[in-house]
């Protein structure tokens, strides 16, 4: 009853599955009714007979469904392949891992880059605004399509953490464990400010053309690169940057007295900007940063009348933050822990010491690996035999 199903097709060029939903009535937060859409996703490992080993991994702002193995677009390792895969902390010998590209994204899921089936041209700026809640709503359709009634865990960092937290509000009965890494109850004013600068860079690029750059076969590459450079700074930390780059000069012994990339940090940021343009759609960047800006569960988490009716007593939460993360600082993560403790929910929390900033969750942090592995495996063993 009420089960959503879609047609699942293999997509050879994207090397992933596409779930095609047609003639749906998917009402988005904005009020827009999304009729036809598709979700690009990848799965790793096998769903067991009890269907109790499924883990949904939610990607961050510029992530995609290629969480493990090789990303066919960039030809590089998937964005969390150090965490997810055979014999990795999230071991796909044991777990069935699902990762889907969010609505509004640009790796095969319906978003501003994709064709609007109603008009047969790319959506561009015609694409409706999306929220984190919409992303989760659409992930839930996918989970239903895969006939999974209960996810063993939902895992995500940054925007992925927002989605994971949203899952605990909107579909608490469908999840058992949540790993929330470097997130917050709400996007802060400072974070919105950084996003706004990025968006302005894109929208002020003459190529942007009010979002219609596809028509002219150009992309607002300068704007998008600048947006990425700004954002990338917020993912690092002062100490980390100092350790990695300091004031070291790039391919030169003396300063040029000009505006070339004299310093390594400049060269690094320029490279980050350039390579981002090759893999990410500028309009998607606008829509997804906006979705993060709109994220605010503070009210839900600050009043008993809002929080206590949520049937989430059974969920085990693991909240992780990093000492040098100033974008989603420990204090913001702790607010979630405080509410959960106040309502005597099942929560674990740890702050990992590192100078790698917000990006730490994607990088080599052995403590992160061991805690995620231990948390998942021990809680998995608690729920009995897994046929």
């Amino acid at each position: 009853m009420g089960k959503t199903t879609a047609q699942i097709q293999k997509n050879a060029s994207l090397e992933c599955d596409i779930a095609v939903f047609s003639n749906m009535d998917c009402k988005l937060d904005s009020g827009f009714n999304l009729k036809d859409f598709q979700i690009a996703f990848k799965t790793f490992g096998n769903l067991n007979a009890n269907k109790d080993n499924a883990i949904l991994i939610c990607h961050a702002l510029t992530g995609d469904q290629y969480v493990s193995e090789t990303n066919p677009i960039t030809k590089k390792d998937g964005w969390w392949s150090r965490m997810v895969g055979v014999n990795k902390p999230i071991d796909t010998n044991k777990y069935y891992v699902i990762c889907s590209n969010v609505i509004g994204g640009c790796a095969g899921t319906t978003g501003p880059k994709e064709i609007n089936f109603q008009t047969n041209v790319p959506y561009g700026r015609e694409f409706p605004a999306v929220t984190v809640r919409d992303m989760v709503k659409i992930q839930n359709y996918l989970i239903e399509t895969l006939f999974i009634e209960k996810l063993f865990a939902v895992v995500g960092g940054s925007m992925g953490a927002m989605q994971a937290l949203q899952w605990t509000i909107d579909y608490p009965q469908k999840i058992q464990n949540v790993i929330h890494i470097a997130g917050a109850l709400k996007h802060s004013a400072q974070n919105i400010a950084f996003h706004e600068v990025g968006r302005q860079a894109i929208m002020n690029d003459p190529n942007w053309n009010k979002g219609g750059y596809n028509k002219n076969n150009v992309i607002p590459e300068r704007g998008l690169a600048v947006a990425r450079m700004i954002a990338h700074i917020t993912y690092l930390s002062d100490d980390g940057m100092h350790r990695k780059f300091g004031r070291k000069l790039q391919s030169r012994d003396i300063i040029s007295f000009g505006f070339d990339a004299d310093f390594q940090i400049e060269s690094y940021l320029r490279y980050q900007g350039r390579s981002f343009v090759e893999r990410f759609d500028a309009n998607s960047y606008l829509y997804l940063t906006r979705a993060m800006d709109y994220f605010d569960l503070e009210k839900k988490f600050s009043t008993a009348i809002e929080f206590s009716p949520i049937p989430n007593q059974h969920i085990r939460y693991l909240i992780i933050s990093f000492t040098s993360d100033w974008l989603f600082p420990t204090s913001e993560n702790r607010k979630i822990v405080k509410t959960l403790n106040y309502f005597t929910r099942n929560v674990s929390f740890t702050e990992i010491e590192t100078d790698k900033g917000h990006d730490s969750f994607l990088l080599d942090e052995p403590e992160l690996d061991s805690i995620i592995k231990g948390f998942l495996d021990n809680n998995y063993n608690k729920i009995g035999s897994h046929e």
Partner: protein
Amino acid sequence: MNKMQSIRKDWNLIESLISRSAKVLDIGCGEGGLIKQLEENIQANTRGIELSPDLARKAIADGLSVVQGNAEKDLDQYSNQSFDYVILSQTLQAMVKPRDVLLELLRIGGKAIVSFPNFGHWKIRLQLLLTGKTPITEGLPYVWYETPNIHFFTIKDFQDLCKQSNIIIEKGIALTSKGRQFEISQGISGANLFTSEAIFLLSYQNFAPIKLQSKQKTFVSNSALVN
């Protein structure tokens, strides 16, 4: 008795004070050994809080619900009477404000279980008397300038504090340095001499709605708070 045996003994005694399937918060839970034992043996529903990130992570990776946090700063996040038992094992002497922590335990839990090394033990008294130096024992194994134990107190001190703070001692168990145990009852001074480690089960004096002591038979409106 070595340290590990003594911890085990301590844990077993704590376990014996807790009813089955109770909701338990362990403050300063370390790697979570005690709460794990309570989950396994008496199906307790447990949580822990631990200051050391490394120990907290070991506990979490062991599948326990533990938050990294400070017993003196972070207890305010737990709501009133949200646990059946709150445990503070071998930690009270390391608190900056032990009395405040003690009161917090009984705000959060219906009952509190507190264990601590007894500074009134005869060996400690003798050491101080004979050497004139701060005693070092199995229970208090640090030199004075490195010890995390910043408050030294005896069973008598603790009993006085409970009395002053309207805390009821429901049960007191003494462990001698040889590992023998006996019940501590008020007024027997031997306990303070021979106990190396004490475990107390505490509750609040029924602070059931402020009793109106008025002899008046009738109340006028708005007089509810008038004595």
